[in-house]
């Protein structure tokens, strides 16, 4: 039972909150019935129950190619962002306040600034370097975009690995490299993993930068979906949406469990 501390205000807020949650979840929930439509038109309720849009998606070469590309780009971006972001988070903890603030301002800026501006800016440079339409170009751009998420997760994990532990390791004869791998990394591995997952998720779903940098050669899954929504709304999009919702929910839950576990450890 909710604790009714504010009388009717509390009751009123519970009603609004329930409606707002419906509003949040309704569009996602809609994908499930829409994807089961046997016909070619989106219909609710569906005319029957069929999984053929799922199998059509899995048999469609272009869609599968985009899906594989998205996995490759997201894995690459996550790897790059996780390595660079983890080192950076450890470096931030050692840096003087001036260096720390300056570095944080730079490294966190992709999080706060409008993605469309970043996309246009990077597009300008990539066009000159002939990187538009290359998977590598997407990997690098997405890595930059997701470094803040790795930083945030690793930084909060570092709270469970105080400097005194490094000092203890060093006093016992471990050099900086040994202390990093034997003490630091094991203690923050959950934060690193959570950062990597969030980084993967963001890259996998990213569409604004992909729209500019995909060109005709490197069309990611979100870019292909964007085109699909513009030009032909079929139940296949609903089927793909269901698969995306399930994958994202599973990965996000895993990452949140890692974050929670890391908190319990300390």
């Amino acid at each position, binding site marked *: 039972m909710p604790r009714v501390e504010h009388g009717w205000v509390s009751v009123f807020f519970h009603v609004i909150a329930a409606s707002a949650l419906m509003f949040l979840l309704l569009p996602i929930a809609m994908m499930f019935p829409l994807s089961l439509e046997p016909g070619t038109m989106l219909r609710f309720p569906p005319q029957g129950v069929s999984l053929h849009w799922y199998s059509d998606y899995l048999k469609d070469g272009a869609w599968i190619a985009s899906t594989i590309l998205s996995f490759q780009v997201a894995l690459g971006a996550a790897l790059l962002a996780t390595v660079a972001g983890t080192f950076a988070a450890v470096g931030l903890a050692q840096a003087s306040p001036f260096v720390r603030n300056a570095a944080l301002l730079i490294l966190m800026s992709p999080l706060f600034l409008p993605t469309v501006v970043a996309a246009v800016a990077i597009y300008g440079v990539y066009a000159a370097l002939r990187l538009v339409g290359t998977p590598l170009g997407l990997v690098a751009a997405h890595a930059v975009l997701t470094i803040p998420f790795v930083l945030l997760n690793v930084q909060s994990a570092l709270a469970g690995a105080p400097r005194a532990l490094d*000092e*203890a390791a*060093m006093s*016992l004869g471990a050099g900086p490299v040994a202390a990093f791998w034997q003490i630091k990394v094991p203690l923050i591995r959950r934060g690193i993993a959570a950062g990597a997952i969030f980084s993967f998720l963001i890259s996998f779903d990213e569409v604004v930068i992909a729209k500019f940098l995909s060109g005709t050669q490197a069309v990611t899954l979100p870019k292909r979906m964007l085109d699909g929504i513009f030009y032909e709304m079929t139940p296949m999009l609903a089927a793909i949406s269901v698969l995306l919702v399930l994958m994202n929910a599973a990965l996000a839950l895993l990452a949140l469990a890692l974050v929670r576990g890391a908190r319990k450890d300390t």
Partner: protein
Amino acid sequence: MTSPNPPPVASAVGPVLAVRNLVKRFGKVAAVDDVSFSVAGGTFLTLLGPSGSGKTTVLRLLGGFETPDAGSIALGGADIGRLPPYKRDIGVVFQRYALFPHMNVAENVGFSLRQRGVATGERARRITEALEMVGLEGLGGRAPSQLSGGQQQRVALARALVFKPRILVMDEPLAALDKHLRERLQDEIRALQRRLGITTVYVTHDQAEAFVMSDIVAVMNAGKIEQIAAPRALYEAPRTEFVARFVGDSNIFRGPVNESRMRLADGVLIAFAGNGAPPTALMVRPEKIRIGKAGHQNAGDNLLQGWLIDMRFLGDACLYRVRAGAQEIVVRDLNRTDSAHFAAGDEVILTWPAADTVPLS
């Protein structure tokens, strides 16, 4: 500065650790300001001081976690002041133990041996030995979080000693424990230190702890060592007002000095046993003063008349606050069967020998 009293143990070995003119600044503040001391082999030296006095910074400089701005640290004759921590061969016990939470007790203790490439069998033997030494046999498989505070403290000690470091340094290792456990561990650490004969530098802000454990105590204030001496010498003959006040309770007198007497503001003369430069202040410990009924004759070079402001009964003793002229004087009178009892307002006389009046500079 070397100690005026030679340490009781192993002084023949000569200084194992020699710190010369050590300086460490953080920004404009000199946390450690020209500190020098040396520690003879097997000696237990404590850096005692209030928080912010620089004692922990000295320890961190010894451990290699900070780089000195000036000065040298010699260990066994070789300068280690600029060596990284992992090449110093110094065992460190940290304030909150700093046990590795992802390793069990045995892995924690064996960490230094693994870094040094000690073979598995030999390592296991030495881990067992170290755990026995601190009374934790059989607990090697436990996680640090499954241990009590006192047990964690013992693991930290075993971990710092297992690789046979040349010296042991400890930073307020007992601060997180309750009073009873703290006193027991003081005895244990002291006994272990004597048995191993390991040169130890210990940091605490607790005067009683410093006295119980140490051969030599260095009192630190504002980045400097005020005085370095054996506990008794420090207590009986503090050189500065800071030491007098920080170590034990004290009554401080001020006034112009003429030969071996000081004239207080109200004209009363205080005798002291002085030889050397005229002191800036005089100090007498509360328990050195005898309190008696007015008119009753008491022997003593110093005799003050006054009246009792109040009395606090401590059980083993009574603490009297006495107003004598312009002075307020604290007297500690042991609770003996024949001790006289006084009440607030009583007229009393205070007496003590000149030898118990300590000149301060």
